[in-house]
């Protein structure tokens, strides 16, 4: 069933708003605003398919509403816009088009068919612009991913050498200190060395995640029984997450076999669990489900991880696999956890999908190629 179109009318003339509402018909859900400010606030808070804006509002010109969004700079209006002009002779039409309106209609000519045509036309132009915009976004995204991949390959090798030097030297220091007779000095120095070692290992982990994301890592694949594997991972996560988060296992009965890098798969599930934990500061449930499922017409092994956390809005959700994208405070999140998951799944020949509802939780669906022996 198609959803009703949502239309916003911004005009200070209540009679005209009512008239337009009737003309648009009951198939359309109409909201009204009597000032530019109210209209802008509504446009920011809700999604509309089309907005009709009067050319002269009490607090601003109709183009003021358009400018408010045009000025944001990402070149994309939140909705299709139709300007309602008062007088055919003024410059309103040119101004409206300049500020990104998709159509222009004179108030006295706003008959039922004229409104319907205008609505359809504005929505069509809007959706064309949106398609072009999102193609541009996709290209930019792909270029960014590529750049990060090149960066990772550029310094990954050198970084791993540096970390070998750091870790090798801490190991030498540990040997020396271990051999010391002075217990007090030993007890004072060892934690410092461990601090260095710990930081170096975290650095190594970062590089590893980045290299997995950019598919530069070497997969050490083995045939894995999915049910057994996910069960073990879930047990491990339960221990790590503590009592406030209940880890549950849902089994669909089928038991697929996959050929994957088990260490990386483990790391991926741990990263997902860590994000789920941060989304559930008051506790909750983390469900691991597994089985097989269709993806794009092919059968895949399917692992679904669902939390009952706070969820996230669409603009966050669409970026969660981007490297260095994090909603956490500086120092708390690297923005590489889910990027690593993404790279791992893609390099393994699989797919990943994320869905989230604010206040209800987030689900990640991983599809991995089924392993068929022989």
């Amino acid at each position: 069933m198609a959803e009703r179109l949502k239309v916003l009318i911004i005009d200070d003339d209540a009679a005209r708003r009512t008239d337009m509402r009737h003309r648009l018909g009951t198939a359309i859900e109409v909201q009204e605003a009597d000032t530019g400010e109210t209209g802008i606030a509504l446009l920011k808070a809700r999604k509309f398919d089309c907005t009709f804006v009067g050319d002269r509002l009490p607090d601003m010109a109709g183009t003021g509403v358009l400018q408010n969004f045009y000025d944001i700079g990402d070149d994309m209006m939140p909705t299709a816009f139709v300007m309602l002009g008062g007088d055919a002779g003024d410059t309103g039409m040119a101004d409206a088009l300049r500020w990104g309106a998709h159509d222009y209609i004179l108030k006295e000519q706003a008959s039922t068919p004229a409104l319907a045509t205008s609505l359809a036309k504005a929505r069509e132009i809007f959706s064309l612009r949106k398609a072009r915009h999102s193609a541009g976004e996709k290209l930019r995204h792909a270029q960014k991913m590529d750049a990060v991949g090149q960066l990772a390959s550029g310094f990954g090798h050198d970084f791993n050498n540096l970390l070998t030097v750091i870790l090798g030297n801490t190991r030498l220091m540990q040997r020396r200190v271990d051999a010391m007779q002075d217990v007090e000095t030993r007890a004072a120095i060892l934690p410092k060395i461990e601090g260095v070692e710990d930081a170096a290992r975290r650095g190594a982990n970062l590089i590893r995640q980045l290299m997995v994301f950019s598919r530069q890592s070497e997969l050490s694949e083995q045939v894995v029984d999915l049910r057994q594997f996910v069960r073990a991972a879930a047990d491990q996560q339960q221990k790590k997450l503590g009592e406030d988060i209940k880890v549950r296992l849902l089994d669909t009965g089928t038991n697929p076999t996959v050929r994957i890098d088990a260490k990386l798969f483990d790391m991926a599930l741990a990263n997902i669990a860590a994000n789920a934990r941060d989304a559930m500061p008051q506790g909750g449930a983390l469900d691991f489900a597994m089985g097989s499922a269709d993806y794009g017409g092919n059968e895949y092994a399917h692992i679904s991880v669902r939390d009952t956390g706070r969820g996230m809005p669409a603009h966050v959700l669409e970026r969660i696999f981007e490297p260095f994208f994090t909603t956490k405070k500086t120092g708390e999140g690297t923005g590489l956890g889910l990027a690593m998951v993404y790279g791992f799944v893609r390099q393994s020949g699989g797919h990943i999908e994320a869905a989230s509802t604010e206040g209800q939780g987030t689900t990640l669906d991983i599809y991995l190629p089924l392993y068929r022996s022989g």
Partner: protein
Amino acid sequence: MEDKLRIMVVDDEEQVRGVVCENLSACGFDVVYARDGQEALNMIDEGTHQPQIVITDIIMPRKEGLEVIMELRRRHPDIRLIAISGGGRTKSADFLHLAKKLGADAILPKPLDIDMLEKTVRELVA
């Protein structure tokens, strides 16, 4: 002294080479190093140092680790080989797997875990 395990470390990065050698020495092995693949092969051919184990980096100037592995496999099948690599730098990063296919007895990623390296060395001669 005579029964110390002889190891050759081949890495073009001086600091890496140094710290790996020093750790292996501390583990009680008899360690020498070569700065690249060509030097390693020369040393072995000249008989200056007959290692039982060669630990080689993969990406090196002059002679790459993969070539070292192939040549040693052919000419000195008794020498145990450990390949180490930090990956990256090129798109086809499957060097360690390639090394294994070409005859390396063990592969270890960088950053090197020294304890793991020691364990691997001991297992190879056990």
